[in-house]
Every structure is written in C-alpha cells, then in structure tokens.
C-alpha cells in the first residue's frame, strides 16, 4: 500500500518545474500568446528533449515507457507555469495511437511525437457540445472524411490530426495529414491564449483508418480528462500560492492584508478544497493504467471536480488581489483564462457528472 509519488516521480516534477522556471517565465508566455501561431517551437523542443511528450509512450516507440500518472505530473507542472503549446493534443493523440492496432501508424508517429519532431492532435468535439463517439456526425467512407470538428487543439500547427468519425461499422479514428486536399483548418480566438484551438472542416478529405471501434477514442478522451484535471490542479495551486504571497506583502489599513480574517478564511477554504483533490486525480491517473474498470467514471469525476476548483481558485485569487488582479499587466488572468479552457474542453463539469452518474448505474 503506497499512495504517494516515487523518488523518480518527484524528480520528474522538479526537473520540469526547474526547466519551466527558467525557460517559461510569464514574459515568454505572453510573447507566445501574442504571436500569430501561439506556438514556440524551441520551447516545445526543449520539453521534448526532457522527454515530456514521450513519458507515457513505450520505449520501443521512442518514449520513456512510464504511465499516465507520470505524464499527468508533467501536466500539473505545465499548468502551474501556464505553459503554451501542443501538449494536450499530442498526449491525447499518443493515447489514441497506443490503443490502435495499426503498427505502421504507431511506428511512424509515436517516435516522432516523443522526440518533438511531429505534432499530432485529436479532433473529437463537434457542434452541439458533442464529445461522445456515439454522437459523431463526421462521416468516413472509402478512406474519405466529411464533417466539421470544432475546438481542435493545436490543429493549426499539427502535422497530422486523428479525426473521430463514423463509418458503416460505427465510430473510429482516421489519420489526416497536414495539407490533405479537402482539409481546412481555421484558427479560432480562444479565451485561453496558451492553448490554441481551430475549427477543422473535412470535405471528402483523405484519411487512413488507424483504429476501429470506440476504444481508441475513449482512451484519448480519458487521458485528456485526467490531464486537464492535473493541469487544473497545478494552475489552482499556483493561484493559491501567488495570492498567499501577495497577501503577505500587500498592506492596507497599516498591515498585510493576509492578517485579515476575511482574506485568511477565503484562502483557507481554497486550500481545504484543493489539498484532498490532489488524491482524486492521482487516483484517476493511476486507474488509467492499473484499474481499467474504474477509469472512465473516476476520470469524469476528476475532470469535473478539479476544473470547477480551478475556476474557483482563479476567481478567489483575482478577487483577493483587488484592482491589480483585474489588470492586463498583472499575470493572474493568464491562469484565469486557462481555467476557462480546462472547464470547457472535452465537455463541462455537468456533462461529466451526469456521465459519472450513468456509469455508477444510479
């Protein structure tokens, strides 16, 4: 019985944190945010050199052969530093490819993702709040895809997109490469400017099926839910830390505002909610590799709960900072915006709570 991190996992977190601390200060985050593509190839390559995108990819495919928990620990640090980039799309695409039986696709794309040579993402969501494989309207026929995908992360910089669609046999994933005829990628302006999304339109675009059935789609979604929960925890924790630090230095009425009970109690409530929530996403991440029958439900619970908490943390942090927290120059809104993404992407808290209720058999 050991529900804690290993020494290697602690070291992994420290390594990523140290790297982001020196290479990804908020000045760089802002520069990337304000750039056209929202993508900084050098930063992403640096993370790839640390092994981040390949953490949960098996060693034969060029990864570190670790588990989703390890990847989620990196996601926590990326969330903490508000790191821009294609991490989420690549991680979901890797999860999908690992669930595929297409050895050619795996051999071609997994090592490329792990090394940072290629960016691959997943196109799942559709108009109408659809995130479930059974409700997809994008159609595949004879290796051609037609449909429209909304909110595809990192699509504008992706070398390949795994498109969730249905053919006569039901749902599956088709790989569409950059520049394919009939593929249109239209960047959208998101509230969170660190993780860009695009609308992807497929008009009879050629795609290669890499996974039939819904399993690969579900694995990608569940990995995504856990990673969003971890990102949310890292971000929420950072909001709490920044606010504690501010409350210790900002003086009003002749004393640090952190001495006022109104401030103390809001922060204590936040810490009280956050501290146990860590164990919820740890458990969901652990279930991904070890307790498959409990994964789907606990990933849903974790995503709903942690992203709600992130929203609360960002709001409390902004409120307690007062006017400065509402300015563009102050960094807090970077996390506030990221919380908006984490809450909405892959479906909001209510959607996942209702799924969890269904999965419980209530």
């Amino acid at each position, binding site marked *: *019985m*050991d*529900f*804690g*991190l*290993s020494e290697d996992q602690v070291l992994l977190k420290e390594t990523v944190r140290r790297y982001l601390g020196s290479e990804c200060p908020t000045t760089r985050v802002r520069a990337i945010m304000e750039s056209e593509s929202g993508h900084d190839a050098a930063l992403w390559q640096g993370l790839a050199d640390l092994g981040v995108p390949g953490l949960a990819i098996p060693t034969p495919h060029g990864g570190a052969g670790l588990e989703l*928990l390890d990847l989620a620990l990196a996601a926590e640090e990326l969330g903490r530093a508000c790191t821009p980039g294609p991490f989420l799309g690549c991680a979901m695409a890797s999860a999908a490819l690992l669930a595929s039986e297409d050895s050619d696709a795996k051999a071609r794309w997994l090592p490329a993702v792990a090394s940072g040579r290629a960016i691959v993402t997943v196109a799942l969501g559709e108009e109408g709040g659809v995130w479930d494989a059974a409700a997809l309207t994008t159609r595949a026929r004879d290796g051609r895809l037609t449909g429209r995908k909304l909110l595809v992360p990192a699509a504008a910089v992706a070398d390949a997109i795994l498109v969730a669609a249905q053919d006569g046999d039901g749902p599956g994933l088709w790989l569409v490469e950059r520049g394919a005829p009939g593929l249109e990628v239209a960047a959208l302006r998101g509230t969170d400017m660190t993780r860009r999304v695009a609308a992807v339109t497929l008009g009879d675009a050629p795609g290669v099926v890499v996974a039939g059935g819904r399993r690969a789609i579900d694995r990608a979604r569940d990995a995504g839910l856990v990673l969003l929960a971890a990102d949310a925890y890292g971000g929420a924790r950072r909001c709490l830390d920044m606010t*504690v630090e501010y*409350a*210790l230095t900002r003086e009003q009425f002749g*004393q*640090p505002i*952190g*001495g006022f*009970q109104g*401030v*103390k*109690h809001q*922060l*204590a*409530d936040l*810490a*009280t*909610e956050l*501290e*146990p*929530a*860590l*164990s*919820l996403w*740890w*458990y969901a991440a*652990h279930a991904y590799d*070890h*307790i498959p029958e409990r994964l789907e439900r*606990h990933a849903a*619970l*974790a995503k*709903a*709960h942690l992203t709600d908490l992130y929203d609360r943390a960002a709001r409390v942090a902004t409120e307690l900072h007062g006017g400065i927290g509402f300015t563009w120059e102050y960094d807090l809104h970077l996390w506030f915006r990221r919380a908006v993404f984490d809450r909405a992407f892959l479906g909001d*808290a*209510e959607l*996942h*709570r*209702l799924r*969890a*209720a269904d999965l*419980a058999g*209530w």
Partner: protein
Amino acid sequence: MNLAYSAEYERFRTEVRRFLGEHWNEAPSGAADSIADLTGAHVRTDARATAFRLLAIERGYLYRHVPRRYGGSEQPGDPLKSTIIAEEFRRARAPFEIMGQGPSMLVPTLLEHGTEAQKEHFIRDTLLGTIRWCQGYSEPGAGSDLASLRTRAVLDDGHWVVNGQKIWTSNAREAEWMFALVRTEPEKAKHDGISYLLIEMNTPGIDVRPLRQMTGDADFNEVFLENARVPADNIVGRRGQGWVVSRSTLKHERALIGGAHLTRRTFDGLVMLAQAVERGGRPVIQDPVIRNRLAELEARLVAAEYHGYRLLTLSARGNDHGLGGMVTKLYSTTLGYDIAKLAMDVVGDRGLLAPGEPNAPAMGMFGLAYMWSLGVLIAGGAANIQRNIIAERGLGLPRDARK
C-alpha cells in the same frame, strides 16, 4: 504508487482475520446505524467484549502505542498494520479500541506528563472502558477562546477546592472521572495560569445537568462545581502547566481511513434513499439535478478517501502530514453537512417529519443526521478556528491579534 498491500501485510491481514474468526464469531446486528457510530453509542464494554479486548491486546492488535506495563500492547509504530487491524475489526464488527476521550486524549497525556502512580492507576482501566472519562474543558465564556476559562482551583489543606462551571460535557452522567482544565494561578498571564486536574465525578459539590441540544436529545451536560475537593496529587504536570499538558495528542500511529469510511456509508445510504424515494411517479435519482449533485459529492468523497491513503503513506514513510493533515476536519465536516443537506432535498416535503416518525423516509434519520452534521462542524474546534489554523500554520499567514 501501488494500492495493493505487500505479501508481508497480506499475511498480517490473514492472521488478524483468523484471530477474529476464532474469537469473535458474533453475527452482525444488521443495524448499519451511522448515528450510533457518530455518537459512539456502539461501544460495547460488557464482560465478553472486555475479555475479547484483553485477548486482542495480548496479540498486539489494540493500543499498540501504549506500553504493556500500563495495559497496552506496545508494538512498533506501523500505520499500515494499524489500518489493516482497524479494517478487519470493523468488517467483523468486533470490539475495537474504545473511542472515547479517555483513551484518545487522557491516556496520551498521562503517558507524556503523568506520574508513575497516575499511569498505573488509570491507564489500564481506561483502555478497557472500566473507567470512563469526560472532558472538562469548555465553559460558557470559554469556547473557541478556551484559555480564558475561569473555573478556579485553590489549594487548601492538601486539596484543590474547585469552583466553576463546565459545559458541552459529553458522557458526564456516565463517567466516573473528569480531566479538567482549571485556573490555579489567577495572577499569571492567561495560558500560564491553568492546571490539569483529574476529578472524581462522585466528589461532593459536583452537579451534572443534562444539556438538551437542538435534536431534542441530551447528549451533553453542564457540570457545576461548588467547593469540590480534589486531592492535591490529582494534578497532571506542574501547577500552571495545564495548557501545555493538554496539548498532548496521539503522536503515534492512527488509523487514518476510518473517517472517510463512515462518510462513504452515509453517502451510499443517500444513494439508496434517492433510489427509494419517488416524486412525480419516478425515483428521485432519475432527476438530472440530483444526479449532478450526487456526482459532485462523490468526487469530494473519493478525494477524501484517497487523501486518507495519501496521509497514511506519508506516515508509513515517516513524513509529516503538513497542510494535508490540517484540512481534514474542515473538509470532512463540510462534506458531511452537504451530504446531509442533499438527503433532506431528496426526501423533499417529507423532510419536515421528525426523526422517529414512521411515515418519514428512513424513519427521519436523515433529519437527525442533518442536525448532527452541524454539531460536528462546531465540536472540537469550530470551522472558523480550523480556518485560522489552516491559514496560519498551513499557509503561513499572520496570526490573528489575540488577547
């Protein structure tokens, strides 16, 4: 991360199970009564239970942190073994360590500050429940600000003469003894003027009056002390050191999973309630609003359960719980309150029926749980006191101005 117990611990679990199978084969009563758990009413101290506890102590299963010479089983600290023991005893519904304030608060205090005579005289019987204790801390004017207490004790002819009033005293009618904080050095600063006394409840001058709480029952008491004479030797620690003495807590292994286990039982009861109660011809659990709220609560409950395992792991590795340990009371009592609140919403209009009313769903027990969920939020350090502790000791924010 590994949620399985190693072979060594699985062997230990098998050994505990075999012991329980051989020595406690009583059929479970079937009354899954969380109110009884909440109030400690399920603690059995009859002859059979006592004989069983003695055997369990002999085997090293109960009171592992207490030396053998005082009636404990004196085992090396091992939080995983403690957890396995607690799980298996609970599963078998076998008499476990007595959960009262005697074993949990007085015994650690005596072990750290008591004289040899006090340890020998009190600890063994306290562990077996043959001496029952109540706690004389709170006063009408000293709640969250406990150190402002005014019950005074003056030394006179080899006795402390005690005058004052204690309140919120659980078990004062049943207890043979009370451990109390009293003011012995009125001229000193408030924390330095307090002493820790052991007072026999049949001492002349002690009057116990039941205190009826909002549920209508009287689970607490007021204790009036008027010229109650307590032998001078019944002080624990030195004069004026009572505040420090009373801070002794259970420093050794503790089973950390128990609290979430009770909450899980209450939550499962809530789900069954929502399946059983119908509104508009359909079970309430089919209402998406209720499903959403149930799932929200379950996420918090799963977090509490695995938070317990995380703290247990920290203990097993010899690490402090830090902030994680400070938040558990506020977190679990808030969650308990929210679960009870949803249960009230599930029963809807019939929630106005009183506990015990046969026409109320589940005999109205959820109404009682709803009221008790407030009681535990206040007892043992009210929510805002917990917030101060978390903010000051956990987050490093400035201390409140205090007099």
